[in-house]
């Protein structure tokens, strides 16, 4: 199929027109109620004064607090974990040295914080000298203590054949000129729960294309997630 034919097909294709009127109205009502409830939140306490008995008011407050803590705000665990973490001298030191919590997850009564430097996590094409790394802190929520802190080195996430092909297209390098396409180590990572396990996943995937132009060797770093070339470097003549 020619390009013009495909473009015409895409422009003229009949687009499905599907509506969900009940969802549309129900969602609107839920959103407005949530927004209104949040605004009205501070008015709950004066209301309790008018109930009558102090005991009745306190019981109701306690009930709402328990519901909120256990069902509405599961992220309260992260707040508790953060408080525990920041009291740990090693973590306190990491933060003082320019670190920050990059990502957090809760799994099986434990909280995990990925701590890294505040500045960009992108590693240079040539890893020279200084070894960058992050730290993964595990907080035991039951025992209310930091159970371990592990170093996390730059991770390499292998590229699939599909990703290598995409890298070639983004990099605009002819197939015959490519010497190799490889994954780049990265610290732009995040935590993810997968099958009740904690895994490290890349936030953005990158590839390094090493290729030849005549008798010159070049390297191109491409961002597969954003679809752009990030850096080009001359590696030398052969």
């Amino acid at each position, binding site marked *: 199929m020619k390009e013009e034919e495909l473009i015409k097909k895409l422009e003229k294709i009949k687009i499905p027109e599907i509506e969900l009127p009940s969802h549309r109205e129900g969602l609107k009502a839920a959103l407005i109620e949530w927004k209104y409830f949040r605004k009205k939140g501070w008015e709950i306490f004066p209301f309790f004064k008018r109930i009558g008995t102090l005991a009745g008011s306190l019981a109701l407050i306690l009930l709402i607090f328990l519901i909120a803590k256990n069902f509405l705000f599961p992220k309260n665990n992260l707040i508790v974990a953060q408080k525990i973490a920041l009291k740990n001298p090693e973590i306190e030191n990491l933060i003082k040295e320019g670190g920050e919590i990059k990502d957090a997850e809760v799994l099986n009564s434990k909280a995990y914080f990925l701590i890294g430097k505040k500045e960009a996590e992108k590693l240079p094409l040539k890893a020279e000298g200084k070894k960058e790394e992050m730290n993964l802190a595990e907080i035991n929520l039951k025992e209310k203590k930091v159970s371990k802190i592990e170093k996390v080195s730059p991770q390499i996430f292998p590229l699939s054949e599909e990703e290598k092909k995409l890298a070639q297209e983004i990099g605009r390098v002819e197939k015959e000129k490519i010497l190799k396409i490889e994954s780049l180590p990265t610290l732009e990572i995040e935590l993810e729960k997968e099958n009740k396990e904690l895994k490290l996943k890349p936030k953005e995937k990158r590839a390094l294309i090493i290729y030849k132009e005549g008798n010159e060797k070049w390297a191109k770093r491409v961002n597969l997630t954003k*679809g752009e070339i990030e850096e080009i470097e001359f590696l030398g003549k052969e």
Partner: protein
Amino acid sequence: MNLENEKELVEKAKKDPQAFSKIYDFYYPQIFGYVLKRVVDVEVARDITSETFFKCLKNIEKFKWRGTSFSSWLYKIASNEIVNFFRKGKYKPVSFEKISEPSSLSNPSQEIIEAEEKMKKEEEFLELHQKIKKLPQIYQEVIVLKFFEKKKTKEIAEILGKSEGAVKSLVHRAIERLRKMM
């Protein structure tokens, strides 16, 4: 909705839920339609749309008119939720769990069933989508935004956070990839 009216309404919506509902009424069909064209699953599109508007309402007070239109901002939220769906292989709205949903949102209903039946009849679109979904995410995004949502290059650039040149290049490469699959 013209730009001036929208600006005024968005500012009001930061504090006034009724103003927000006017914005919602205007953008719901667009966002739901966009999400549906990307995921081709009525229930998932419903959930992603819910999450998109929740995040919009939650963050609307932080929204500022700085080089990005409100429409692009909303599409960007939707795009990010779609990426999360494809990345994890399933969709579990997180933020929206905080809100008690009316039953029509949480139970498969006649409305969903009818919508799915209608979707199944769009054979030409579904056949094309089978090919589009094999493309990398970024290519899928530009194709749907340009050809199905009829967005201009400038708008797509705002949504994706890229230059117009980069968007044109992406569209060209996406078309080339798709063409080879046809």
